[in-house]
């Protein structure tokens, strides 16, 4: 792996994935679509962390540890985010971000 695939290739993949995720998070109207974009971005970050861990210091656990923390945070974010989506839907009967524009319920 190390000899076959250079580190920049993995990093390029991660960057592309991050940008696609960012596009999704910024341009989607559906709140769940936005959350999915965020998940993509978090995955891209994880790929980066793992790649750096593997190429630089495979015998230490820092990279993997951070990746696991990010996975945990992502899970928490998904849970809270989706709970909020459901709450918003209950209140506004829509999950489109640009229609949720009333401060008074």
């Amino acid at each position, binding site marked *: 792996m190390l000899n076959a695939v250079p580190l920049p*290739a993995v990093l390029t993949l991660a960057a592309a994935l991050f940008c696609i995720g960012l596009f999704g998070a910024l341009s989607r109207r559906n709140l769940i679509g936005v959350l999915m974009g965020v998940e993509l971005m978090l995955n891209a970050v994880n790929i980066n962390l793992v790649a750096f861990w593997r190429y630089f210091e495979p015998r230490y656990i820092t990279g993997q540890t951070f990746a696991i923390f990010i996975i945990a945070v992502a899970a928490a974010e998904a849970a809270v985010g989706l709970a909020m989506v459901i709450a918003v839907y209950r209140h506004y009967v829509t999950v489109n971000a640009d229609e949720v524009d009333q401060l008074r319920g």
Partner: protein
Amino acid sequence: MEVVVQVVFGLIALFILVAAAMVVSVRNVIHSALWLIACFFGVGALYLLLQAEFLAVVQVLVYVGAVSVLILFAIMLTRQISGEGVRQLTSRWPVVLVVTVLLFATVMAPTLINQQWNVPPAPPLGTPEPIAGPAELGRGFVNEFLIQFQVVGVLLTVALIGAIVIAFEERARRRRVLTLAEELELKRLRERATQTETPEPVEAEPVARETRPASEG
């Protein structure tokens, strides 16, 4: 052997990128979520290729097994599934596209101008390389990263409680599931409201207070 690894990496990368592109571009939200799951799988495969076995398994366990199921559940609970005839992207999506492409270019610049990463030389093929596995990870969590580990634990607990509190509905205030007739009535009311531009007072129905159309496209 190297060629095999390169081909495999290329396939995985292509798979991840295509799946991610489908996630943000597909109209149907469910399809989008399914592509997201495919993307998670691709990332898990990449972890395997990077010899982060434990992480790959955790990726499948958490993302595929839990997060994606959560997303699917949320989509089905909000009943905005098919997305036919509904605009899925905001009106300013070209701007966003330009911004993301610019960002990608910025990130790629160092690579393009041949930045040296000073990657330590890999050991020759065949020699066993000490790689941190699950045992080392576990040890790290209770020594080096104890505080962080605790914080993540607290965060997860708080998120759990918070999610419950946010999505919680008291028994008495639980919204009745609308019948088809009621939904049609609601839709009719909304259409009338947009035509006259003067929202009529809608009586009694709490969900009918929303006078904007559910869809514009």
